[in-house]
């Protein structure tokens, strides 16, 4: 690994390994955050030193960052250092860089940490997916994040920003960067960008474009766009994703664009991206007490809307699990921003700590629903049931079920 090593870094790196090992032995999760935290405390520059000399790609945005990070890691080919355990803050990044010395690095980054992590890791590529309301009790002001990214990207050098041209908040964040590859990818959710981030006047959306009276508008120099096929920087690619949904096509387009800037052959990358069938348990088929389940993570209105579009159009039962713990955001008000009316014709079984909030939402949407207080009464069928769950509920369902 071509980096200057210091005794302090070596001690810190050793501490990360040791603490993570102890954490895993003590069965306290997958053991990455704790070790990373210890390492950063011993050597605050640890992340910077661990990243030096490597090809780093960062991925951030409200929805799709885990999937896009996984698609980049798979698409790159060979050994890639990545934080695939879900810890997307510096502790997780340190742990990932200690665990693998690979020259190729792709890191999923929490939106609030992008400036810190980008300044420390000096990435070659930053991929920005979308910004929308998520965990309202914490990062409530989506626009403040866009402002912070804008300041960061105006300032950062030697980086290509791969950015979603259909999300006005992403365009606002990225437009001052020296080198931007705009991606024209499916982005159905623009409810959080109604007023112009530059002048606050209304934004207008029509015919696949958007603009504001002040001149702020969708960029027209697009690097990546969908037509009959996906075109990435002049190369036409026939996507055949295993992952479902238009939102995963958007994720794949961004991933392939990012890979093209770290000199990965697109045809090879496409094959590897197409082959990805499940990311961190998402979309995977599971078994639980005789039920066959497909687990779908949906943790905010934009993500939920996308996921509802992937459900089959028959009248199959759907299970939905909602928690409102710290990691989910403690305010479940967002349930009223999800178009649950789309589930009319299905019977929805309500799970999770906040199943009554969900049932109330479904009741007002006139969707047939059952509040599951006793799981032993659930009807068993041979059909695969889609389970939509938000963050901690998803982790619970993943833990309690087994792979098929």
């Amino acid at each position, binding site marked *: 690994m071509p980096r200057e090593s210091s005794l302090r870094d070596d001690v810190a790196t050793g501490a990360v390994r040791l603490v993570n090992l102890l954490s895993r032995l003590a069965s306290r999760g997958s053991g990455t955050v704790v070790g990373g935290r210890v390492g950063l405390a011993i050597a605050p520059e640890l992340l910077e030193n661990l990243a030096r000399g490597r090809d780093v790609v960062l991925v951030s945005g409200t929805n799709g960052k885990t999937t896009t990070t996984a698609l980049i890691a798979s698409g790159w080919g060979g050994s890639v250092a990545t934080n695939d355990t879900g810890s997307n803050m510096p502790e997780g990044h340190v742990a990932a860089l200690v665990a693998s010395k690979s020259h190729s690095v792709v890191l999923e980054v929490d939106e609030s940490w992008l400036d810190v992590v980008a300044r420390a890791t000096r990435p070659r590529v930053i991929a920005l997916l979308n910004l929308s*309301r998520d965990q*309202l*009790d*914490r990062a*409530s*002001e*989506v*626009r403040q994040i866009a402002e912070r990214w804008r300041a960061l990207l105006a300032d950062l050098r030697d980086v290509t920003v791969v950015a979603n041209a259909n999300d006005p908040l992403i365009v606002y964040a990225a437009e001052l960067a020296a080198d931007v590859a705009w991606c024209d990818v499916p982005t159905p959710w623009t*409810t959080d960008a*109604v*007023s112009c*981030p530059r002048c*606050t*006047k*209304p934004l207008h959306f029509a015919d696949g474009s958007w603009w504001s009276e002040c001149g702020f508008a969708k960029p027209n120099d697009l690097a990546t766009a969908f037509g009959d096929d996906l075109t990435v920087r002049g190369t036409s690619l026939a996507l055949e994703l295993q992952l479902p949904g238009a939102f995963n096509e958007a994720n794949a387009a961004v991933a392939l664009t990012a890979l093209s800037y770290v000199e990965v052959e697109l045809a090879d990358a496409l094959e590897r991206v197409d082959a990805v069938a499940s990311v961190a348990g998402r979309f995977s088929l599971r078994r639980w007490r005789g039920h066959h389940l497909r687990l779908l993570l949906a943790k905010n209105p934009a993500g939920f809307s996308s996921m509802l579009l992937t459900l089959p159009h028959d009248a199959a039962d759907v299970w939905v699990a909602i928690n409102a713990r710290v990691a989910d955001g*403690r*305010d479940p*008000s*967002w*349930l*009223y*921003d999800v178009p649950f009316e789309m589930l009319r014709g299905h019977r929805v079984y309500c799970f999770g700590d906040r199943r*009554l*909030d969900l*049932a*109330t*939402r479904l*009741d*007002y*949407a*006139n969707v047939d629903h059952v*509040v599951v207080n006793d799981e032993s009464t659930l009807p068993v069928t041979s059909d695969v049931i889609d389970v939509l769950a938000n963050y901690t509920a998803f982790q619970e369902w993943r833990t309690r079920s087994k792979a098929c």
Partner: protein
Amino acid sequence: MLSVALIYPELLGTYGDGGNALVLAERARRRGFEAEVVNVGIDDEVPDATIYLLGGGEDGPQRLGADLLRASSFAARVRDGNFVFAVCAGLQLLGTSFCVEGDDEYEGLGLVDATTSRGETRAVGDLVVRVDDRALVGFENHGGRTTLGDDVEAFATVEVGLGNDGVVDGFRTPAIWASYAHGPVLAMNPWFADKVLGRALGRELEPLVTVADQLYDERVRALAR
């Protein structure tokens, strides 16, 4: 005919606030009233309506919402007695002034003598207030501290959370009820939804049993101190 006008949902709808319109319309329909929800977009005229709903929003959208409403017939209609239920940013912009990024005294609609200044911290968490001796449960997320004029009645007294100032929440005039309990507060509090609906329709309503009753009981139990 109940006409629920949801004012600028694109600007003032950060926390699922549109849910309140849905709840009112559904609870009216289930009692046999005709009901419609009118989404008043930023390019639309403010229509006549049985009730106007104002939701929460971030700084920029809140400022734009206030500007658009100031230029509309909204204030005149409210002075004529049209009923308003407002939450969060919607509450603030009905007052005389509020804070946005870069301006600590942004002009409100002045329909109520209430000024909102910036608090040192954001109030984020469960909010329980007492309205007419009954608990109203909700969630608040705002950085404002609202001071009411001497002759302005508060909407409720605070039991858990901050509201205006940790003591009282919102304000209440004959035509305007306003609370910091954002989002679908009417979904979580069916008894209060019916109070709003009864006021809008100008009549007493028969009880209506919904799963929301169980939700309300659960939240009251969870938040009771």
